[in-house]
């Protein structure tokens, strides 16, 4: 006992001294923190820095495979530009949830992020550095749609994109062959196929919603098919009220689908739904390719195929889909912007995308005409499916204020519990009430 106490007292002396040294400063700062608010801490000036680095790169590619792909990418960027890059990996969820305090704190010189409203939101709050000078050099590599995705509301560029991936209906080729199913082109054929699968003892559509976001994809695609892209964007910006009958129509169609969706979705993680598809207990699954394909065992991947969501309203055909785009941004408080911009110039090339896609077999590059030599069947088909679209949406949680997406997750889970018309009415009213508090000032 005596030795443990003497150890304690030694540490106590150390700790006590340190604490004393800190607290007066703490109290002073506490008094002034109220009015200073976002007062910039020392050390993070604007612009400048050493053009040859080194820089740090904040990454949310925490999964093993994308992590390797990202390491290969930064390695190549380093070699090309002579800028030394240190990667700071933070798991995807934590990175996302803390983005606001990350950007205001001591951010890295570059960071991974998403295109769309989710980019504009932070750019408009002056947390990101415009990179128009980078785009002067890389602009020729991208089409107009990708360019507009990379811009803030002020028309300046804030993102260099790297890849996107389609949200489509996956199935196993072998199951379709054995049972003689054909890819449904329109809603009636889709429902008929679901019915057939059910009689054949299959779960027609594997489905999971515990993670919150997967069902937003179903809402998006029904909305895009029924009401079109313009309507989707307006709704996301709350220029159309949530009580609109267009939204009611989406849920009416969804109700038709409910008997064919896997039961107990709210308590299932989507990986388990993908398992049901992979194990051929389910016939189809609607989700992003970089989830379903990435989750398939290597041996089963050859059997996996997909088709774009069937036509519901011939006016919009199969013109749109969700194809979220990921990329890289430059935080306003980056320490070494010149070197970071050199890296960005490289990242915005077809060469960089090909490097990244060497180890990533589910996303597709966004540079013009890129066909990476390592593309598999799914990737080749993804490129085609995306380029067939007149416009691609980013996904509800990237096209609207995240608070609104959070509110919708909860309401949609309520709909899955009880898809009655009365639920929809209450849901739409609640969505509109919450939208008003979120969007109006």
């Amino acid at each position: 006992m005596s030795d443990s106490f003497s150890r304690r007292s030694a540490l106590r002396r150390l700790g006590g001294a340190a604490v004393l040294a800190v607290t007066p400063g703490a109290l002073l700062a506490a008094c002034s923190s109220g009015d200073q608010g976002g007062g910039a801490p020392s050390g993070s000036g604007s612009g400048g820095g050493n053009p040859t680095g080194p820089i740090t790169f904040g990454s949310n590619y925490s999964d093993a495979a994308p992590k390797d792909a990202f390491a290969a990418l930064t390695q190549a960027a380093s070699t090309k530009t002579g800028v030394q890059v240190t990667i700071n990996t933070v798991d995807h969820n934590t990175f996302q949830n803390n983005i606001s305090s990350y950007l205001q704190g001591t951010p890295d010189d570059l960071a991974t992020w998403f295109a769309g409203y989710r980019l504009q939101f932070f750019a408009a709050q002056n947390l990101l550095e415009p990179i128009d000078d980078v785009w002067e050099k890389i602009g020729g590599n991208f089409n107009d749609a990708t360019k507009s995705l990379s811009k803030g509301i002020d028309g300046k560029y804030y993102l260099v994109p790297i890849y996107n991936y389609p949200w489509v209906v996956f199935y196993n080729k072998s199951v379709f062959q054995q049972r003689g199913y054909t890819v449904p082109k329109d809603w009636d054929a889709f429902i008929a196929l679901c019915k057939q699968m059910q009689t054949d003892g299959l779960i027609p559509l594997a489905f999971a919603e515990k993670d919150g976001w997967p069902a937003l994809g179903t809402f998006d695609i029904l909305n895009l098919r029924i009401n079109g892209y313009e309507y989707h964007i307006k709704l996301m910006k709350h220029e159309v009220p949530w009580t609109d009958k267009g939204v009611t129509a989406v849920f009416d169609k969804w109700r038709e689908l409910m008997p064919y969706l896997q039961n107990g979705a709210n308590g299932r993680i989507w990986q388990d739904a993908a398992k049901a598809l992979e194990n051929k207990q389910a016939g189809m699954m609607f989700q992003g390719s970089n989830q379903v394909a990435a989750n398939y065992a290597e041996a089963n991947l050859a059997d996996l195929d997909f088709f774009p969501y069937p036509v519901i309203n011939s006016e919009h055909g199969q013109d749109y889909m969700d194809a979220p785009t990921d990329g890289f941004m430059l935080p306003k408080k980056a320490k070494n912007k010149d070197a970071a911009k050199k890296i960005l110039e490289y990242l915005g090339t077809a060469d960089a995308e090909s490097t990244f896609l060497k180890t990533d077999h589910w996303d597709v590059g966004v540079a013009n005409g890129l066909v990476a030599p390592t593309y598999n069947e799914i990737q080749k088909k993804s490129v085609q499916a995306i380029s067939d679209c007149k416009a691609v949406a980013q996904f509800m949680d990237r096209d609207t204020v995240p608070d609104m997406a959070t509110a919708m997750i909860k309401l949609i889970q309520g709909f899955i519990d009880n898809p009655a018309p009365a639920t929809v009415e209450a849901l739409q009213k609640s969505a509109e009430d919450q939208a008003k508090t979120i969007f109006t000032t």
Partner: protein
Amino acid sequence: MVATTDRVTGPPAAPRRRRWRGARTLSTRDKWVLAGLLGIPLLLDLAFVWIPALGSVLLSFTKWTGVGSISLQPCGSRPTLPGIPEPGCVYGVQNYNQAFTVYPDFWPAVLHNAIWLLVFIVLATPLGMLLAVIIDRGIRGSRIYQSVLFLPVMLSLALIGIIWELIYSPNYGLLNSIIGRTSNENLIDWLGDPNLNLWAILVEATWRQAGYVMVLYLAGLKALDPALREAALVDGANAWQSFWRVTFPVLKPINIVILVVTVIESLRAFDLVYISSKGNVLNGLELLSVLVTQNIVGETQRIGFGSTLGVVLLVISLVPISIFLYQVFRKEART
């Protein structure tokens, strides 16, 4: 030191609650020691707990995304681009108004917190105390029981999340597999069904709380003078009677610890739900602290609104517990 001696000559008949009054008996050096003993912890507590807490109370009257500074102008007085939030502004009591009216999760959360508290008071905490009493009697294998029962308290949230995912997973989980409800037609969605999930989570919570209470209570029992209990047994009381008549009343300070811990844990409950519903709040699992988290820690933050929910939670928990503690401590001081 001489000054202190005359104070010892008090009546030896009732010395139990007597303590030595005031600073008068302290030497100069003792006074410095006293200042150190109290001062350092107090400074830390004030600087890093109470001042931020006060800050949150102030923030609850603002509308703020957590970005930039807060101006003292009322909200809506500056034009903004559509969809882009206004910089921080004064919002008055609007947040409170919205929490009580528009926000659909608020009242369910209050109800669920109340259920949680009830289950803890009726089930989890008494179970933990019972386990402690049994283990304290030194029955065979008590070391093993104690270790196993305390295990859940020691596990990280990540592990607890995985453990119960493996139990409750609708198609592959242990529970549904055992009762044969894994097919698409008959599965039970333990964590997704809003009528079931609170109870499923309360099983997890009890699993952890019982071990926690057990250890706290056990430490109390260990500190107890066993002569007391022996005396009672000699007097012919059985184990049950000796516990209720002798042990329980003597352990009053520990019982208060347990009671306060139970209330705190029920009101602060957040992590199990957070990990089980993957950061979203599933229907049926709304709890006040989860809602606070969702609004304050997230990609876009509604700091003002989240702080408001936090203040509501504070008032609900702080006021009754402070009053309770004040009365308990004052009574003790008097006797």
